[in-house]
C-alpha cells in the first residue's frame, strides 16, 4: 500500500540499476532531503546545532566505519584514532593558512595514508586479532596526542580551530554550519549508495563472505581490504575535521579516545552492518537516546511526584538506555536497518500479502 510495486516495470538495465528503483523509495528520499534543507527554518537553532548537526556528522562517521566493518567485514576498533589524524591535520593546515577546502582534503588524505599504512600491517592477521591490532592503533594514537605538544599541545591542551570558511566565505551562522554537515552527510550517503550497486561493493561483500571463493573470481582480497580501510579512513578524516570545525570548534585528545571508537562501532552494529539507513538510526540512538531517556525520566519523576536522589537520577537513564540497546538487538540482531527493511518489505505489497512468494 505504502510502497506499491505494481506498475514498476524496468525495461532497461539502466533503469533497473537506479539508486532507488522503486518510485516510493525515491520519493521518500527526496522528501527527507527537502526536510533536511528546510530544517534551519523549522527547527530552533539550539536543537539544530546541538542535536541535528552532530547526528549528521556522526552518521557520516558511522557510514565510514560501516564500509570497513559492514561491507569488507573487518572489525575496526581504532576508528576514532583515524578521525583524530584527519581532524588534527586539517586544523593544523587551516591554522597554517591553507583554505578550509584543501585543509579538509589534507585531513582526509592524511587519514587515508595512515589508515592504509596501518592496514598493511594489521591485515596480516584476521578476526579478533585484527580487532586487537586496531585497538593498539587507537592507544598509540592516544599516546601520541597526549605526548607530542607539537600536534595537540600536550595532554589536557586543546587546539583552537580557525573559523570555518568555504570558497572564501566565513561560515559562522548556525544554519551555515548545519548545511556544511548536511552536505557532507549527503555526499557520504551517495557514495555508499553507489557502493551498493557497483563492482567495488560486490567485491567487498565477496571478501567478507568467502575469501577463497572471491579469490577464484579474481578478487585480490588483501588489496580490497586495504582499499576499504583507505576509503573508510578518508571519510573518517574529513568527518573528524568537520566535527572539530563545525561542532567542537577546538580539537582535544579527549574527543578521539577509545570510548569514541566503541561508540561509533555501537552505532554501526545497532544500526545494522552493511545498512545505510541503519547507520542513521544507529547514530540517532547512540547519540540522542541518552538525552531523550533523561528527559522522559525527569518528566516521569515529576508526574509521579517522586523524590529521586541526584545519584539515582543520574544512573536510571543510563540503565534504561543500555536495556534499550539490548532489547533492540534481541528483537532484530541484524540491527535497526533490518527492522526497517522488514517493515518496508511487509508494506511493499500489503494488503495483498498472498502475492508474496
Amino acid at each position, binding site marked *: 500500500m505504502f510502497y506499491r510495486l505494481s506498475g514498476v516495470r524496468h525495461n532497461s538495465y539502466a533503469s533497473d540499476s537506479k539508486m532507488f528503483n522503486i518510485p516510493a523509495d525515491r520519493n521518500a528520499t527526496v522528501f527527507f532531503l527537502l526536510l533536511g534543507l528546510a530544517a534551519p527554518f523549522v527547527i530552533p537553532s539550539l536543537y539544530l546545532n546541538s542535536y541535528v548537526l552532530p547526528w549528521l556528522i556522526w552518521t557520516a562517521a558511522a557510514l565510514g566505519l560501516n564500509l570497513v566493518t559492514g561491507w569488507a567485514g573487518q572489525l575496526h576498533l581504532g576508528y576514532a584514532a583515524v578521525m583524530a589524524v584527519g581532524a588534527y591535520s586539517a586544523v593544523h593546515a587551516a591554522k597554517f593558512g591553507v583554505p578550509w577546502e584543501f585543509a579538509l582534503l589534507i585531513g582526509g588524505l592524511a587519514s587515508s595514508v595512515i589508515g592504509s599504512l596501518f592496514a598493511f600491517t594489521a591485515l596480516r592477521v584476521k578476526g579478533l586479532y585484527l580487532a586487537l591490532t586496531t585497538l593498539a592503533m587507537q592507544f598509540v594514537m592516544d599516546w601520541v596526542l597526549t605526548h607530542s605538544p607539537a600536534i595537540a599541545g600536550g595532554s589536557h591542551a586543546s587546539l583552537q580551530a580557525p573559523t570555518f570558511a568555504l570558497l572564501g566565505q566565513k561560515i559562522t551562522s548556525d544554519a551555515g554550519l548545519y548545511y556544511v554537515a548536511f552536505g557532507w552527510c549527503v555526499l557520504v550517503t551517495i557514495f555508499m549508495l553507489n557502493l551498493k550497486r*557497483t563492482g567495488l561493493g560486490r567485491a567487498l561483500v565477496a571478501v567478507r563472505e568467502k575469501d577463497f571463493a572471491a579469490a577464484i573470481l579474481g578478487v585480490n582480497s588483501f588489496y580490497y581490504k586495504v582499499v576499504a580501510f583507505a576509503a573508510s579512513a578518508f571519510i573518517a578524516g574529513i568527518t573528524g575535521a568537520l566535527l572539530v570545525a563545525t561542532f567542537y570548534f577546538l580539537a582535544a585528545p579527549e574527543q578521539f579516545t577509545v570510548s569514541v571508537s566503541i561508540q561509533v562501532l555501537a552505532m554501526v552494529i545497532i544500526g545494522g552492518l552493511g545498512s545505510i539507513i541503519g547507520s542513521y538510526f544507529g547514530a540517532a540512538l547512540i547519540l540522542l537516546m541518552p538525552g531523550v531517556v533523561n528527559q522522559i525520566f525527569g518528566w516521569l519523576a515529576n508526574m509521579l511526584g517522586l523524590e529521586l536522589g541526584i545519584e539515582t537520577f543520574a544512573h536510571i537513564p543510563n540503565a534504561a538506555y543500555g536495556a534499550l540497546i539490548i532489547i533492540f538487538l534481541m528483537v532484530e540482531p541484524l540491527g535497526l536497518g533490518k527492522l526497517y527493511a522488514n517493515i518496508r518489505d511487509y508494506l511493499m505489497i500489503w494488503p495483498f500479502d498472498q502475492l508474496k512468494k
Partner: protein
Amino acid sequence: MTKVKPTGGAEAPVLECIGVERRFGGLVAVTGVDLAIQRGEIFGLVGPNGSGKTTLTNAITGFYPPNVGRIKLDGKDITGTAPHKVAGMGVARTFQNLALFNGMSVLDNILLGRHIHMNPGIVRTALYWWLARPQEIANREVVEEVIDFLQLESIRHELVDGIPIGLKKRVELARALVAEPHLLILDEPMAGMNQEEKEYMARFILDARAERGVSVLLIEHHMDVITGICDKVLALNYGEMIATGNPQDVIKDPRVIEAYIGGSHGE
C-alpha cells in the same frame, strides 16, 4: 548446434599437469599426476573419496601450489600463481560445497563473475554516473545472456540464501561462465541432484562447450555422466593415477572397479 572438436596435439593444451605432487605434512595427497586437456575437451576426473581430485584442482587454481611438478595453462607455466591471478588468466571453477555469497542476490553473485573484466575502484564508485554506469550495464548484458542460457530469469532478484540446492549449483555455474574462461573446472556439479537435474546440468555443460568453446575439467562420481559427456577420463586412487584414456575403457579397468567397489581379494 556445431560441436567443437578437440584439436588434438596441434596447439598447446589448455591445461597441462606434469608430475604434480602435493603433500600435507607426511600425507601425500596427490603424486605423479600427468594430464593434458586439449581445447574443447571435456575431461573427467574420477576417483573414490579422498583420492586427491579436489587437491589436484586446488593445486591448479593456486590454493595449494604443488610441491613437485609444473602446471601449464595454454603453454604458460602457472605453477604457484595466486588464485586471483589464475582467475585473470581464464580459469573459472565451482566448488564441491557451493561457494556463493550469502546475503547477495542471484544477479549480484553472477555479476561478481565479471570482476576480472571490470576492475572496480573508489573513484569509479564515487563518480558512478560517468565512470561506472556504462561498464556496469555492459557487463549486465553479458550476465543476462548467461542467465538466459541457464534459465535463471525467474530468480535473478532473489537472495541466493533461499533458493534450492539444484539452482544454487546452476547459479555457481553461471558465475563461472560469465568470466568467459578458457578452462572451466567443475567440482562435483551434480552432487545431490536427482536424475532430471543431472540431465539439465549435463546439457548445460555440453552447450557451454559448444556455444562458448570452453574446455572443462569435470570432477564427478556419477559414472553415467562421465561416460555420457566426457571425451577423456583420468582416474585417481590414493593420489596416484590408476587409469587414463577414453571413458568406456577407464570404467572397465579392473583397478578402477577395485578402487570404487573393492575387488575380490582372493584373486
